[in-house]
């Protein structure tokens, strides 16, 4: 029955194909109203593969970093599995923290590279249009949506201004802070002859007493924990309540919209 023209997009009503998706209709999955809904669908490729991979590498390493980081500040109860020489429990916790930190840093460097060569959405994370009044107005609009003062959010292809602001603050600035303070702390163990000390010794010089650096790094951990909680909640909520896709977008890269209104 496929003698009609198939090169016309499904979004355009096509008298030649009054009943598209024939196979899906066999499963009961494509009723006329489903076809109508499908005609509304528009999708745009937003997050390229390197951005998505980076996101999930970040999610994994940050999870490891938060758990091991907390344990480094408050170690687990003493365990006497073996002689101290043969037991390396706290050493492994610290190793996991350092290893995850190294991976996170390399991934972040790769992400910065991708900001230059990737699509325009890959650059959004690294700047905020600070001097654009309109951008701040839209940020307030989005905040009002979260405060239930707006009936409906606006459609965005990349991050909305509020999300953009949070990403920039916690990821771009926050993670940079954690990488710098983290490597300065690592430089302490690596020693003053190490490349880490050569690169990050100035941080130690700035805080003078590295106990302060531990405290700052520790507070940073909590800031990122709070960001992660809000981020996951906002992504879930937006996926349900906003006008565009969220969760699938960071898996497949495609942003879809639930309505076809222009504004």
């Amino acid at each position, binding site marked *: 029955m496929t003698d009609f023209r198939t090169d016309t997009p499904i979004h355009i009503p096509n008298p030649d194909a009054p009943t598209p998706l024939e196979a899906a209709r066999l499963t009961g999955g494509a009723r006329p109203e489903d076809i109508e809904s499908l005609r509304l669908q528009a999708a745009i490729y937003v997050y390229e593969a390197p951005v998505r991979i980076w996101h999930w590498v970040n999610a994994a390493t940050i999870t490891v970093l938060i758990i091991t980081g907390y344990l480094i500040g408050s170690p687990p109860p003493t365990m006497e599995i073996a002689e101290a020489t043969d037991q390396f*429990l706290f050493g492994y916790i610290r190793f996991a923290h350092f290893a995850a930190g190294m991976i996170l840093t390399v991934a972040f460097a790769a992400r910065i590279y991708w900001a230059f060569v990737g699509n325009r959405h890959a650059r959004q994370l690294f700047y905020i249009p600070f001097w654009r009044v309109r951008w701040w107005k839209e940020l307030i609009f989005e905040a009002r949506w979260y405060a239930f003062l707006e009936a409906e959010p606006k459609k965005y292809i990349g991050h909305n201004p509020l999300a953009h602001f949070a990403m920039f603050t916690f990821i771009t600035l926050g993670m940079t802070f954690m990488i710098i303070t983290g490597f300065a702390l690592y430089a302490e163990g690596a020693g003053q002859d190490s490349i880490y000390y050569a690169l990050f010794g100035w941080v130690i010089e700035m805080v003078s007493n590295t106990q302060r650096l531990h405290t700052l790094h520790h507070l940073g951990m909590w800031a990122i924990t709070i960001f992660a909680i809000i981020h996951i909640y906002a992504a879930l909520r937006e996926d349900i309540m906003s006008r565009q896709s969220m969760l699938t977008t960071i898996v497949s890269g495609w942003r879809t919209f639930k309505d076809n209104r222009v504004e």
Partner: protein
Amino acid sequence: MAQIETFYDVMRRQGITRRSFMKYCSLTASALGLGPAFVPKIAHAMETKPRTPVIWINGLECTCCSESFIRGAHPLAKDVVLSMISLDYSHVLMAAAGKHALDAMEEAIDAHRGNYILAVEGNPPLNEDGMFCFQGGKPFVEKLRHVAKDAKAIISWGSCASYGCVQAAAPNPTRATPVHKVITDKPIIKVPGCPPIAEVMTGVITYMLTFDRLPPLDRQGRPAMFYSQRIHDKCYRRPHFDAGQFVEQWDDDYARKGYCLYKVGCKGPTTYNACSTVRWNEGVSFPIQSGHGCIGCSEDGFWDQGSFYDRLTTIRQFGVEATADQIGLAATGVVGAGIAAHIAASALKRAQKKTDDNRSKEEV
């Protein structure tokens, strides 16, 4: 003024044998991490060089640096170390007092202008025009500036002179200020510690004497040979740290077994000093070996890093006193509760919207 005696002259005069003198030189060489080839160089320097004139002044302090210094560990210390330098003024150790002592200081400044080393123990308080430390009818800060003007270099003995120590602890009512923030135009060697280890103090002086220059300093201006590694890096309890075997509370079984003191607040991981290698009292012990955590006494602001017995620093900002964990947990709790409330509100709003939509559809 007569020719200043060499170190060797002074030692011999005090009845020290050549054999003991050579022992001292080799001990000093090894304390400074120098090879055996440097032993004759040190001996030569001490035999030929005039003693370094030193003016030792005391500001706001407790004299623990002087006390430590006069307990230099090896046998020759009590005879040699005080004679090694030409200690021209030190109101703690000198016999003279009052006007005579101050005259001696002026005399020393005149005689060795630009050549003496200024050793500062303690620091000047700057509030109320420096009235909190008064010597010879003048605020100490004026004495410090006066003596520093013609000094070749300054040694900041101890944490007071280097960082401020207890008198500079928050809220620092007298505005006790470390030496390098008052004197900015002279080379300054910081030898922090409360007090510094005696061998570290004598080692620094011996180095300057032997090589006629300042010892290599780290980024914070401390002699690198004593302050480039943490207590933690050379701690003999480190294997227990890596194993995750900690003293949980004082006097528990783990404390008796000599496990790591990290959980009971040891500041070894953030303290740069030579305690775990040089040790104290002729190498007998150091705090961790005696079962007590390092309190970080050679670090900047160590009084303000919370309890000596907590791993996590208490943060005192905005009137709260809490560790990073307590602040973080509280903030996470608030955010979590906020999200829970937001979820409920979102669901209600959505339900309400659906009802409205249905009603408007029915009306249509």
